[in-house]
């Protein structure tokens, strides 16, 4: 589980834990991609590589009992939430021991016990769910918040508009403790933000819903944490939504199946890689004397060991039983159901 920070401000210990988390998530996803190439993982596989600082910074800023909604690019969130990596990998492998019994796959990870309410495949489609969930959290006067991750591309959907207007309205009544985290990774598939959004300054779009908003560097977990921590505290205190646009980048193709990337220059990817969240954090920790070559290697080795354990578990797990095809369609068997 990603290290939670109790007090505002991040110290070296925390940063080291976050570094460890980011390294682990990256190793996990690199393995997932290898498994995809070997035909062990099917369907669509969307890697988060490059964006790890966002998830770490945000999840570091919330409580265990806060809840999360996300899109299909969802591996990092569950892993950082503390879900067993074996169950995540087994889900990618479509095994019975997977998080969702092999029924959801990469795009639909769920760990409701840990407050992760899913991975959704229709862009923007999860936003109304998150707004409603935030309302529910406040319905009986609780103080939990709902965090909703979304991409830059999702902001052009009608669901975004309808949901956020409702969030703004319900926020006026203190009934919508929602933290919106836009991961502006510059593209929705092959379409850049300026080609898809009439106003490329995405955070400003939240003004249309009276939702306070900020922008931050999404390549630095500490920067993300600092901003989001304030937002989370605000949302929790006031019951009003709050939004942040994190400026980040995905290194890999949109999905693992995409081979060509005619929409961007290799040099652009290289430039962003200069600001890699893991490398940057590593530098900072080395500077602070908290990391050296040996420790870096040990952390990587430990990450790889845990990932391979997950793979072994997934490989060894059985396929779902054929009867599983028919379960989970309805909650309770009802008299007369067809």
């Amino acid at each position, binding site marked *: 589980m990603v290290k939670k920070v109790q007090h505002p401000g991040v110290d070296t210990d925390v940063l080291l834990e976050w570094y460890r988390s980011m390294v682990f998530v990256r190793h996990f996803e690199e393995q997932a991609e290898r498994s995809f190439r070997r035909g062990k993982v099917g369907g669509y596989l969307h890697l988060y590589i490059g964006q790890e600082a966002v998830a770490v910074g945000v999840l570091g800023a919330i409580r265990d009992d806060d809840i999360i909604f996300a899109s299909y690019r969802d591996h990092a969130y569950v892993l950082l939430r503390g879900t067993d990596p074996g169950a995540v990998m087994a889900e990618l492998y479509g095994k019975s021991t997977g998080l969702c019994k092999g029924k959801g796959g990469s795009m639909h990870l769920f760990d409701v016990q840990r407050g992760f309410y899913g991975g959704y495949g229709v862009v923007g489609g999860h936003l109304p769910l998150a707004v409603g969930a935030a309302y*529910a959290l406040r319905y009986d006067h609780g103080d939990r918040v709902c965090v909703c991750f979304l991409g830059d591309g999702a902001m052009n959907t009608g669901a975004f508009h309808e*949901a956020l207007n409702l969030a703004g309205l319900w926020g006026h009544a203190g*009934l919508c403790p929602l933290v919106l985290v836009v991961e502006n990774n510059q593209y929705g598939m092959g379409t850049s933000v300026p080609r898809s959004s009439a106003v490329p300054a995405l955070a400003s779009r939240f003004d249309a819903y009276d939702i306070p908003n900020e922008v931050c560097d999404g390549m630095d977990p500490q920067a993300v944490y600092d901003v989001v921590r304030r937002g989370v505290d605000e949302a929790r205190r006031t019951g009003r939504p709050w939004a942040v646009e994190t400026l980040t980048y995905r290194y890999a193709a949109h999905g693992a199946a995409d081979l060509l990337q005619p929409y961007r220059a290799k040099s652009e990817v290289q430039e962003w890689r200069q600001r890699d969240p893991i490398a940057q954090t590593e530098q900072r920790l080395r500077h602070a004397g908290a990391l050296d070559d040996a420790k870096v290697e040990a952390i990587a080795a430990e990450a790889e060991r845990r990932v391979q354990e997950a793979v072994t578990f997934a490989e060894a797990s059985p396929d779902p039983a054929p009867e599983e095809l028919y379960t989970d369609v309805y909650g309770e068997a009802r008299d007369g159901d067809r």
Partner: protein
Amino acid sequence: MPDLTYRDALKSTLVEEMDRDPRVLLMGEDIGVYGGTFLVTEGLLARYGPKRVIDTPISEAGFIGCGIGMAMLGLRPVIEVMTWNFSLIAADQIIQNAAKIRYFSGGQAGVPMVIRGPNGAGVQLSAQHSQALEALYGYFPGLYVAAPATPADARGLLRTAIRASDPVIFLENASLYGLRGEVPDGDYVVPFGRAAVARHGRDVTLVTHGRTLHMTLAAAAHLAADGVECDVIDLRTLRPLDMATVVESVRRTHRAVVIEDQGGLYGVAGEVMAGIYERAFDDLDAPVVRVSGEDVPMPYARTLELLAQPNEAKIVEAVRRTVA
């Protein structure tokens, strides 16, 4: 057993369920201050306050999607759509999220939500306000589809819907809200997937649901005068679809007419016919006949609108053909 309108059967059931379970809340356009387009929720804002009776902006995808999120967190939203026509704006939310979340989460999350409102035509509301959508939603596993035709079923099915653990498409009809009938008191519940035999007869089975039940019963009464005795079956829910009751009847009558309000191509009647033949092919003495609305968008002019819809005479004529 009080005599209530369909509207009051719905409203009193909402009240009973809201009193029973604080997790039940209402949401929709103009259901609070305005009282609801068809006044089903009139007075409920005053009774339960704005946290449980939520007036929304014109954002069907938004508030139905919010209902899904609320339901996932344990609330039991009952959402009104002004007409089911507008639900098409939320088709993605209903079909892709509400119906499927339980499945793709491997059973971790469920969506105990009801969406209710008038389905099908009113009087001269023209093409964009008149569509009947039972077959459209009936196609998707993960949804329930209920269509009460009487005040008693309005109560019994709505109660089942609110207590169900999965999303329910609850189809009312503008022409039914004023209909009066006896409504059982107390914890009256009509389970999903149980068709009702609305009239008993030995000569031919008439299968229908929703508002066309009443013209079907009128046709059956008319035919009885001529000595043709109809078994009239009201499907009550379209998903699950209770073919067992239909087939049991057809095995006795050896003849069937299936009536639906609209449709034709890919409607409810075609499915029911297919189901009858799959299970009772050898019992049939004549081809099953269907009576559907005409295969056109609903016109505005009253004369055309009436031509577009089934009616008692068309049903009588179809039955005559079947028993000829």
